[in-house]
């Protein structure tokens, strides 16, 4: 998509770009770049993507503008899609059961983050912003778990049904039940910070995650594929992993316990 390519900043002019529900405003004046974020709530407009273009008139004052001193040579801007900065707890809208020695492939769609980078040869990371602000969730024990983002997902099983709004990326998750009991998939934790983002024909993709559930007491094995997904021809990596990973992770990723609210 063109929105991820480098674009020229026109000095002293207000510019506007859009990735789904995230609208970005920018204005360069001298060595300073001003950036503002606007969130679109109109359901029709949130499916659009627009490269940065000039906006006539003055910039809107009601936005919360941030200012960066970038120098006079930083006239190129580039947007980079990233995974969220914390793990995601995916909760299928309808829980699924996987019998023993069976596996299931899900296509989990989650909103990306956008990193704003300026400069030609020497690039400067300015800002990171989520396209959609996800709700927080606690995964694990209230005394020693970890803070994640909550994602209520349809966890689609077929590629054709997978959503493809411009601000979302599709992550193939394959769960294999190697335990002796049936697995109730009520929620699973995905460490998305280890995932790369690939540019597909009309969708964004991450590399595949393989989770092997070995039992409630045993630690689940999580493997992050290093190769691009094979469900659709993809071009290249447009967003590197926040935390590159080489070895398979041994983590408790599946959880079928009920967290309590107490009284």
């Amino acid at each position, binding site marked *: 998509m063109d929105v991820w390519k480098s674009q020229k900043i026109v000095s002293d002019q207000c510019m506007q770009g859009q990735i789904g529900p995230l609208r970005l405003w920018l204005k360069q004046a001298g060595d300073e770049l001003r950036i503002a974020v606007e969130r679109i709530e109109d359901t029709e407009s949130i499916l659009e993507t627009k490269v940065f273009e000039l906006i006539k008139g003055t910039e809107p004052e009601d936005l919360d503008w941030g200012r960066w001193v970038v120098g006079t040579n930083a006239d190129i801007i580039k947007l980079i899609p990233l995974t969220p900065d914390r793990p995601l*707890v995916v*909760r299928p809208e309808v829980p699924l059961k996987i019998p023993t020695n069976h596996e299931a492939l899900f296509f989990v769609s989650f909103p990306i983050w956008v990193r704003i980078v300026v400069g030609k040869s020497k690039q400067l990371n300015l800002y990171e912003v989520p396209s959609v*602000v*996800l*709700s*927080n*969730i*606690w*995964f694990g024990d*209230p*005394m*020693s*778990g970890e*803070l994640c983002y*909550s994602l209520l997902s349809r966890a689609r099983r077929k590629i054709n049904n997978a959503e493809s709004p411009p601000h979302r990326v599709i992550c193939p998750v394959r769960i294999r039940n190697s335990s002796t009991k049936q697995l109730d998939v009520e*929620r699973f934790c995905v460490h998305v910070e280890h995932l790369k983002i690939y540019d597909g024909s009309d969708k964004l993709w991450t590399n595949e995650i393989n989770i092997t559930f070995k039992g409630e007491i045993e630690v689940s094995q999580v493997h992050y594929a290093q190769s691009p997904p094979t469900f659709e021809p993809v071009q290249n990596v447009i967003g590197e992993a926040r935390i590159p990973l080489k070895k398979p992770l041994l983590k408790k990723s599946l959880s079928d316990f009920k*967290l*309590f*609210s*107490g*009284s």
Partner: protein
Amino acid sequence: MLAITGINWTNLLTKGTITAVIRIAALVVIGFPLLTFVSAITGRAVKKRFTPQASMLVRKGIFYTGSVLLLVSILYQMGFKLTALLGAAGIAGIAIGFASQTSVSNIISGLFLISEKPFTVGDIVKVGDTKGTILSIDLLSVKLRTFDNQFIRIPNESLIKNQVTNITRFPIRRLDINVGVAYKENVGKVREVLLDIASKEPLCLDEPEPLVRFLNFGDSALEFLFAVWCVKEDYLKLNTKMMQQIKERFDAENIEIPFPHQSLYTGSVTKPFPIRIVKEQHEDKTKSP
């Protein structure tokens, strides 16, 4: 020449005396700096593996023990008899012990606090009516900084004796909000609106799930407990946001938040309250003269 002011310096400056003076000087000049250095190095090494409190304890322990040994050595070099000195120290120790019972109690309590670790530096604790952030845990007392920037020293003994609440021990906290609505309101709708407020607030954790509990038929309101979870850093921010959102949503949904009021009856709810208009009588009285 040496017999100045009647003192025979020749007798004083014997070989043994000079040696003792050199030893004392060496103990003072080398011993104390070396002791400070060793205690600091050991303290730093302990800090890497253990807590700052353990480091402080080891550092001070080495320094004070070393200081006492150095002092005893200096006194020995000066010709004091150690047996008499220790005897005197024993008697003095009993006297000092009686006089400093509180301090000793605080020191022992401090050791318990350090080993038990009910809180560490940086935790927010509540002791009685005092709430604040732990600045340091020392042998005699714990120092707090309150939220209005006051410095409070609490003796260790009182921390051992009284209940201490560590507010930030665990990573997540539950925010409890008491909500009252008018008796005419639909309980199900109130519950639905409150849960919707929680689901739309990103700081509010989706799990553990928010809780709405119908508590009581109050004097003026139906009383609910609205409990939501958040990470401890977001507690105050979420508290403010939730209170504001509850008020705004209740206003938008026409859910009344009542205030205490009283209804007057004349003995039967079916009969209207009798009203006597006194204005006319008053006007008649004014006209009559």
